[in-house]
């Protein structure tokens, strides 16, 4: 399997293959094709970052451009899902959740429970997350903890192209609403991706590196920073497990707990803000269920409790770095 795809291409391929496989799948979003109503090219954009490019002509009538009304179109995706379709709605930036959150957390997330199991809402909301794009406070947030907090939602955040394809296919086939978080700084990163369709099950974390000295738990872009940190630490003789959670809700506690039981040391890394974060969530779980194995206080490396600053000089230090991670690991080792 030598073929390499960028995460952008992998996502495109997942959408393409699922649309081909299942006639109830369709996609919608702002400029997801682009050029509607005008005199120029159709499929002029394929989404602002080109992720859906090409699908419009391949799947006629199933790539819907929307007016700039997230409550209405995300809600329509949810309603269509409750009526037997499998829509994938693109919210562009997850930061825009604030104008349509009700449809996600009070509607989609709650139908199954509120209606006594008599409704399914197989909708996927895709959106870009994360900092590093110099896109400032309203276009750079992670916000994964907010969705993870809500029962009834599933939250996915791949760290690479291979996972993105398999997790998106699983998300589309899943019968619950899924928030699919795409880190915009990973779109261009290539990995080997099989051409055939495959699904990666939820709640199966990926141990992307093995080591017995400490456990680093993270997801998304931070997996790469954690790997950099682990490489640097290995040079100092410190070997780390690096766990890529892949799905934040449901979450694979077993892999996390097993690792900490072996290493006795935990550092949680989260690009989100610190309070009530994924990092704090994982820390709390371990402090509850694997306390006896812990040899040192848990380390957390997160963004600071501030909005995302615009200036590259500030944004670069806003985002957790490999150096911070390796320091945190060393702190857990008393260094």
């Amino acid at each position, binding site marked *: 399997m030598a073929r390499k795809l960028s995460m952008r291409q992998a996502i495109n391929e997942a959408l393409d293959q699922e649309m081909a496989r299942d006639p109830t799948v369709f996609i919608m979003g702002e400029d997801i094709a682009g050029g509607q109503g005008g005199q120029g090219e159709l499929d002029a954009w394929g989404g602002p970052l080109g992720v859906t490019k090409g699908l419009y002509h391949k799947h006629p009538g199933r790539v819907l451009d929307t007016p700039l009304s997230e409550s209405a179109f995300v*809600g329509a995706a949810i309603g269509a899902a409750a009526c037997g*379709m499998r829509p994938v709605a693109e919210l562009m930036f997850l930061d825009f959740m604030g104008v349509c959150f009700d449809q996600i957390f009070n509607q989609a997330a709650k139908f199954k429970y509120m209606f006594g199991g*008599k409704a399914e809402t197989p909708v996927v909301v895709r959106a870009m997350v994360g900092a590093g794009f110099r896109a400032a406070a309203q276009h750079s947030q992670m916000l994964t903890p907010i969705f993870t907090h809500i029962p009834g939602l599933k939250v996915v955040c791949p760290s690479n192209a291979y996972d993105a394809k398999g997790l998106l296919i699983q998300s589309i086939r899943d019968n619950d609403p899924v928030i699919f978080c795409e880190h915009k700084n990973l779109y261009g990163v290539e990995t080997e991706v099989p051409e055939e369709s495959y699904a990666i099950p939820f709640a199966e974390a990926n141990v992307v590196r093995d080591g017995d000295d400490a456990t680093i738990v993270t997801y998304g872009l931070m997996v790469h920073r954690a790997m950099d940190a682990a490489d640097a630490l290995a040079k100092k003789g410190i070997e780390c497990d690096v766990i890529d959670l892949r799905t934040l809700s449901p979450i694979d506690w077993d892999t996390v707990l097993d690792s900490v039981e072996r290493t006795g040391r935990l550092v949680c890394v989260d690009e989100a803000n610190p309070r009530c974060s994924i990092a704090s969530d994982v820390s709390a779980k371990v402090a509850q269920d694997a306390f006896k194995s812990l040899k040192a206080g848990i380390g957390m490396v997160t963004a600071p409790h501030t909005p995302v600053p615009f200036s590259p000089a500030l944004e670069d230090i806003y985002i957790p770095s490999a150096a911070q991670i390796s320091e945190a690991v060393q702190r857990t080792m008393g260094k």
Partner: protein
Amino acid sequence: MAKNPFPLSKEKLLDAYRTMRTIREFEERLHTEFAKGEIPGFVHLYAGEEAAGTGIMMHLTDKDRIASTHRGHGHCIAKGVDVKSMMAEIFGKAAGACRGKGGSMHIADLSKGMMGANGILGAGAPLACGAGLAAKYRGDGGVGISFVGDGASNQGTFLESLNLAAVWNLPVIFVVENNGYAESTHRDYAVAVDSYVDRAAGFGLPGVTVDGTDFFAVYETAGEVIKRAREGGGPSLLECKMVRFYGHFEGDQQLYRGKGELEDIRANRDCIKLFASRIVEAGVVTPKELEKIDREAAQLIEEAAAFAKSAPPPAPAELLTDVYVSY
């Protein structure tokens, strides 16, 4: 018997009467039970508004889907949701339509095309668009109906949906149930246009206002706009001007009403009385036939209430079912 001057057969007229009477009995029973402290939570009654839901729903089948409001009992009954399971739901019992997990504000029955009452104002509008979109995809001729109150008509979610349905040409009807009040606030305080037809026009939708206490007005107009939607003619807005017989929710003292207002609407704008006298005066049905339905409706509700009261609550294990539990 006289010749039937109505757009419905005698049988259908009696069906409509039965639906309305059933809703009224249901709501009056809830009113009593609530006062006795038997019903938990917030309960919003549809009494007085029956003609609207009934007149619209008579055009629908199970493949047509509705998205309702916090005031959803009437919509449920008219859409064919089982009355016993509704009553049990409102009493919080395991035999409830949603196994006791939803309550009055969240009754749904997808198999009947009832997508749920909704505790969030305006939230049903995009859902109905989704239903319309799904129907359009399938080409099955189905429609989505969104209900919203006069107050909730100011929610952004609803307003966005008008535009979405218009630009996507969806088979969706937006029903504005204008009962003159949002909680205790009069409609005229919160909406600066006289007619919702104007608001619809602002989004490129045809709109029409009817007297929502006049079953026939609702029935005929709903028929037209639904037919147009089914045939690909796109969405419409239908405003029903109606009256609310009880408080906003049970427990409301209604001090905000004008003197004599309630007495007046009950005496002169009772949609069921108006409907009954029209069909009786036309000589199409007899008072006896209606009385029989009255008794049957009362009986049905009595049974439903007895059933609901004696039914067991959900088992504790139900707390954790019907949702992915990862923690």
